[in-house]
């Protein structure tokens, strides 16, 4: 029995590190939905672009790991800026199907564009040297990198909380998320705020992709396979709810990890059962008002 508990604990830690990539992706997704009202399928593509950019700066050009991450955040932020100003800005008022299908169109575009630019072959850059090695937990080695990812995820969560709750910018975001007209009436420049939020969300997604680069593969379609899990998380936590997204990411990440150990056949199935259950019983999400 003790053995089983140990197994589960270790599996939880592994799942926890996976949750953090999901969290970084879902955070931006839910933020954009909460403020801009658009459910962005192409958000996963920004995650993928973050990974490709980091791969290019770090793996190909050979820049410093941290500098590479910083540069890829800037690049993807720039792409987000272009996307918002040229395209997304025009769809806030239109019907849901058109919104969704426009963002779906961008998945197709980005998946093919990275194939054109980087080729279709999967790529794995080398691991940063200072992260090699592992810590002994429960008699088994647990990589430093996973520990770093867990702390990075928690750090971003705290940062987001601080920005949204304690800064003036955060208050304007919350104000416009709950009542757009009112926010506009008290002098908040809504278009600029929307652009900022979108770019910020794009950078969060890129950060998730960038942090995954050294240990995960960089290939076309990695965003598409992650986005659906991010959707599940966003729904579980409540559309537009950041705290919910964090908890949702933990649930999905850890459940996936348990699934591989305990019920491999239903690993994916279970996640969607949870999603449907939440939608039917508490559609506003676990942390909805």
């Amino acid at each position, binding site marked *: 029995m003790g053995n089983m508990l140990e197994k589960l604990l270790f*599996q939880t830690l592994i799942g926890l590190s996976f949750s953090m990539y999901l969290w970084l992706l879902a955070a931006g997704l839910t933020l954009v939905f909460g403020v801009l009202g658009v459910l962005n399928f192409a958000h996963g593509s920004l995650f993928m672009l973050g990974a490709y950019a980091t791969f290019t700066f770090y793996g190909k050009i050979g820049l410093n790991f941290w500098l590479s991450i910083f540069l890829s955040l800037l690049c993807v932020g720039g792409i987000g800026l272009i996307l918002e100003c040229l395209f997304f800005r025009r769809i806030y008022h239109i019907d849901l199907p058109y919104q969704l299908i426009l963002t779906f169109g961008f998945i197709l575009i980005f998946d093919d564009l990275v194939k054109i630019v980087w080729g279709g072959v999967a790529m794995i850059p080398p691991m940063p040297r200072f992260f090699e090695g592992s810590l002994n937990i429960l008699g088994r080695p647990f990589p430093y990198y996973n520990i770093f990812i867990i702390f990075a995820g928690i750090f971003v969560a705290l940062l987001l909380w601080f920005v949204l709750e304690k800064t003036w910018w955060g208050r304007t975001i919350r104000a416009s998320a709950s009542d757009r007209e009112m926010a506009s009436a008290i002098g908040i420049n809504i278009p600029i705020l929307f652009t900022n939020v979108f770019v910020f969300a794009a950078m969060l997604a890129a950060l998730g992709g960038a942090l995954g680069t050294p240990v995960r593969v960089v290939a076309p379609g990695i965003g598409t396979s992650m986005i659906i899990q991010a959707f599940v998380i966003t729904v579980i936590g409540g559309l537009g709810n950041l705290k919910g997204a964090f908890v949702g990411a933990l649930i999905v990440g850890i459940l996936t990890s348990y699934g591989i150990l305990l019920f491999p056949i239903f690993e994916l199935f279970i996640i969607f059962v949870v999603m449907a259950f939440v939608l039917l019983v508490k559609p506003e999400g676990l942390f909805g008002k």
Partner: protein
Amino acid sequence: MAKKITRRKFLRDTVIGGIVLGSGLGGYRITYGQTKKPAGPIKIGGQGAISGAHADYGWQMMAGATLAIEEINAKGGILKRKLELKFMDEELKPATAVKNARYLVTDWGADFLFGIDSSGSAMAVGPVLPELDRLCFFCHAATHRLTEELVAGKGIKQVFRMVAPVYQDALAAWVFKDSPEIKRWAGINCDYEYGYVAWNLFKENIKKFRPDVEFVAAAWAPFWTMDFSSHISAVMAEKPDAIFATPWAGEGVMLLRQALMLGVFEKIQAWWQCMGGSVDLLEGISREVAADKFKGKLWATARYIHNYPDTPENKAFVSAFRKRWGKFPNYSAEASYSTIYAIKAGAEKAKTLETSKVAEALEGMELKTPAGTRLIRKEDHQAIYTVPGGKVTHSPDYPIPVLGDLKIIPAKEYFRHPPFTPVAATK
């Protein structure tokens, strides 16, 4: 009144739809009508994975076939006709593979088909071949069912497999049968046909030599897994002595690197990476091999390795390939290269391109190929040749790691033979 208007609107819409359809298809007819010429070049249609994490395999296939076609065309072609190649992306999806096969034969006018990386795709394309009336030479798909069930069982004579099937993956049983210290085996396998068959075949064979071994854990990784840490930690919880792993290509590289991160090689005595002898995988882990991170515990085989056999044919092939493409040839390249020469041999012996006659000519034929002498077995159309297993090592003679310490077991010992007994293709 209202009804009448909507009906009119419907009709109007339909008519316009019809015009679009008509003009579209009319346009097709014009462009397509001219593609079929009776005595132009011999058309060879290939397909493999040229996108995604396994893209290098399709590329290698295309590269190997292109090299052979260039060589043959330079010497006058087959039956005095030049060869022409078209290569498509199979995407490792059975539906796409079938669609491609149909397109290549019925529209492009292919005389022969070859390629196909995924077992699932191969099992889907095989049954369509009689309808298409074309031979297809499989250059990578490994499931035993392709030749055992479709050819030997159902008599689909259009299927030929030029590459070593999943029997090769079970070579581990012969390599490790004399290691008494390895008793507890665990598997990290692909959650599809290839993974099940390789693992089951290995279990079946090693049990014959070593009734004392146990299979303590098995984790199943679906196609397109990026993060294997959950799988690794799930099997390591059972403290195995050795691990049998099937994920291939980029996924194999990820798996090995994540296993290193999780300290697996401190704890186990051997790791068998079935297709670890593949060039792309060796390239992916070359830094780690050079630093001896695997501690000499990583073993592998492949469906051909460029440093075996030591024959003039092989040396000529490897150097021609490196000269043409600047890379070492992988097994899918060797198999497709040999396929083109097999087509040549078959067509020249039959003196025609007719499907049934070329098939008959190839049955029982022995071909000298880079991988050694291939015998095309009559009963199941499987090419038989030996590929050794070995330890992944760093060698000063090569820029990338190679298999060293080779264990050479004759193919007829570890290949299965007709009549076939079924192997489970499930968990």
